């Protein structure tokens, strides 16, 4: 059996969703496919955690949802990054970078 898809580091899912939406507005399935693609299959999202995160982000005003028809005539909720969401994304990306560098330094130190 190949490696199981990894669990996300706690708290990073929000950042990944924001990042995904930074390119273009997208629906839930789109987000999950995009994350899976971009991570080359390392992260596979459970529907529960995905929609939980979406609901949380929407309530915090970081993304906006809107019902729109899809290509094959169903209705889906498309999510857009808000200005606040963009700011948060920038902050978190920077912070993440700092932490990763720091952790890498510690790991390489020995």
């Amino acid at each position: 059996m190949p490696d199981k898809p990894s669990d996300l580091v706690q708290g990073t899912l929000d950042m990944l969703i924001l990042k995904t939406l930074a390119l273009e507005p997208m629906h839930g399935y789109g987000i999950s496919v995009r994350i899976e693609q971009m991570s080359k299959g390392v992260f596979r999202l459970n529907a529960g955690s995905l929609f939980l995160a979406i609901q949380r982000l929407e309530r915090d005003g970081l993304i906006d949802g809107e019902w729109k028809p899809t290509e094959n005539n169903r209705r889906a909720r498309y999510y857009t990054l808000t200005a606040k969401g963009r700011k948060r994304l920038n902050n978190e990306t920077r912070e993440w970078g700092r932490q990763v560098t720091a952790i890498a330094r510690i790991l390489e130190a020995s």
Partner: protein
Amino acid sequence: MALLRNIATGLRSLFRREQMDRELDEELGTYLEMEAAEKMKQGMGRREAVRAVRLERGSLEITKEVVRSAGWEFFVEMCWRDFRFAGRMLGKNLGFALVTVLVMALGIGASAAMFSVVNAVLLRPLSFNDPDRIVTLSSLWKQDGSHGPVSAPDFRDWHDQSTAFDAMAYYEDDDAAVTASAVAEYAHVAMVSPEFFHVFRVQPVAGREFSPEETKPGSAGAVVIGNASAVNHFGSAVNAVGHKIRFGGRTLEIVGVLPPGFHFPGKSDVWFPSNTLFPDTESRSGHNYSVVARLKPTVTLEQARAQMITIGSRLEQKYPESNTGKNVAVTRTRDDMVSNFRLTLWVMLAAVGVVFLIACANLANMLLAKAVGRTREIAVRAALGASRARIMLQLITESLVMALLAGTVGVLLALWGARVLVALAPADVPRLAEATIDTRVLAFTFIVSVVASLLFGLAPALQVLRVDLNKSLKQGTTRSTAGGLADRLRGTLVVAEIALSMMLLIAAGLLLKSFVALQNVSLGFRPERVLVVESNVLASDLEGQKLATRFYKDLLSNVANIPGVLHAGAARTLPGHASSAGSYWVDYLPQHPDFSKTPNAVFSVVAPGTFATLGIPLLEGRDFNDIDTYNVPFSAIINEKLAKDTFHGQDPIGHVIYWGLDTPDPMRIVGVVGDLRQWGPARSPWPEIFGAYQQHPASSTNLNVVVRTAMAPAALSESIRQKARALSADVPLKFTTMEASLSENVAAPRFRTLLLGVFAALAVCLAMAGVYGVMSYVVGQRSNEIALRMALGASPGDVSRLVLKQALVLTSLGMVIGLACSAAVTRLLQSMLFEVKASDPLTYAVVIAALAGVALAASYVPARRAMRVDPMISLRYE
């Protein structure tokens, strides 16, 4: 912003549940479809694809539940559902719910009522400007640490030498006759020094304060009156200014009206400047005044204390004759006002708290039994996926619903209970009338209800944690799945109930014994069928005072002629209410008396016939008579105690005696009477000197006329009032009976005894209900075992002994703990006890026997039930 948005979305989903659900359904549906479509593109069949998605991404139903339960609104909704469920459960067990709510409401109501009294008397700040800075200064008697009134020269030194205060004033207050319109009425009058109003920062709502001129000795005088009297007599505060009132034989102008609600000291409604109408007493040993002051904003109470002690020591050195052993005490006025009642009130609140705890323990027991009955329901819920926390929350919600219902009923009970308490309490508890249900009492009640719900809801809820799912589902009966924890809890609760009621019973027993002792004390006179007429004649100089004694002379001879009057007399102070005491000397008056070595006596002034009226035996010599007038050498009558202490068996008649009341003139002893308990039943008799009223006119302007009657005393009030009115319209009268006046003496102990007795009785009833409940339950649980024993040959007697033994074990354990706690706690009561030790063995023995007896009685019924268990039926039933 984010918070608002969160709340808005939450609210939307709360109130538009269905739409939100549909949207979530649709969104998840689309998600599923899209992923399935993707899988179908790769060549899967549709059913297969959908199944694969489900496997990979998890069940959609669970996903929905997860997403839905993430918002705060879900919690609200859950609680609401729990509340509704709790309501339904209570509705189903209406009887049980009613009993629970009622028991709880009693506990909460009693606590809230008691707390409203504590709140009004002890906790609420005084209604003055910045009340925490107002302090009371008193003479500190170093010998016994007691606080007392202050002399005018001491006050002046304190005032002039201290720097810790913004203002300092002394006052003296009393009920006195004031004529604002036609007839004289009793008013509470305070004589205050110039800075008095600055201490309280109170400003007249109409008119002005006293002018400096008006506060000087010999001024024409002026008064300030309270708003209520102004409105009563003159229509409004503004109208009152400029009017005149008669007081102390003078006509005085009203120069100002104080704001509504200001009544310090006591219930004062007339204030006039000190040292004008009545000159200050100039002796340093004449302790006649009370002192209040306002601390400077930068000075703490401790700093003020330190400064005053320095000043006090300085005065001690400078005036050793009068000030040795005397210093200054500084206390916050609020603490000073309630110092007598603080302990009583806290003890009562603690007692009511104990009753409340017992009620909680009882309910915990009832709910525990219920919870055991519901084990199966709970097991089913757990099996269907409810978490333990979730189930506990639901159980606690149920008890919370009951507690809040009980709290509401409790507040209603407290409204009524507070009134009862106010009516029962001694009349001189300050600010008691303000006992109302305010926000603080409501908050208290609410907290108490929530605490109660936790106390009695938590035990059963905790027990749920121990339930073994499999076992209880398999067994399917409500029996014997309770587990050891529940049994232990139940036992513990009963033990606690017994221990707590033991403490209350012992406290109540001690107070009761002490109260009975107080009641049985021989007072030295016969108070029954004696009418008391308080009166007050206006007089500010010797001529006026002599007119006053003339008034009493006429009144007494007129009253003696009323049919039904057996004897009549008059006394300045009634027995049990002694107010003045001081040094006395026999045979010669030293030039420079050493006050620390002279004996003390109570000083009294009486009219002829008073001893006969009150039933005080004349042991030797004669009573006063009409010959004892102002113009002849003075006579005195002493009591037995003084004769014994000072004359050591010699005949005191014919000796002369000097006292420190109003005259340095010698008084010849003409009689000896029996001893009285002048200070009330709690203190033994002091030496006492009686003077004849006509010879001490200054002390005889306000006498209590006493009348021994052949019928009920009150029946004579009207004819006596007419006689007095015929003599003067300026004399206000207040009628009471000797017995009523004496009962004021024991009002505080009566209040304590009654209340604690009621609480203890309540506690015992509740605890016995607890014992009964538990033993019944135990018999129910053990009916198999009992049946088996009986089948194997145990007699009914053996079985009932078995049950009683278990009850006895619980009871004695509770009593041992209760005894230990009582021994520790009742020591607090010692200061409230009269002729009874806190460790009184008889009280302990009686309480132990009574409690054990009652506990056995409470378990007797369950024991009987155990005896009647039919082994055949019981075993077959299983």
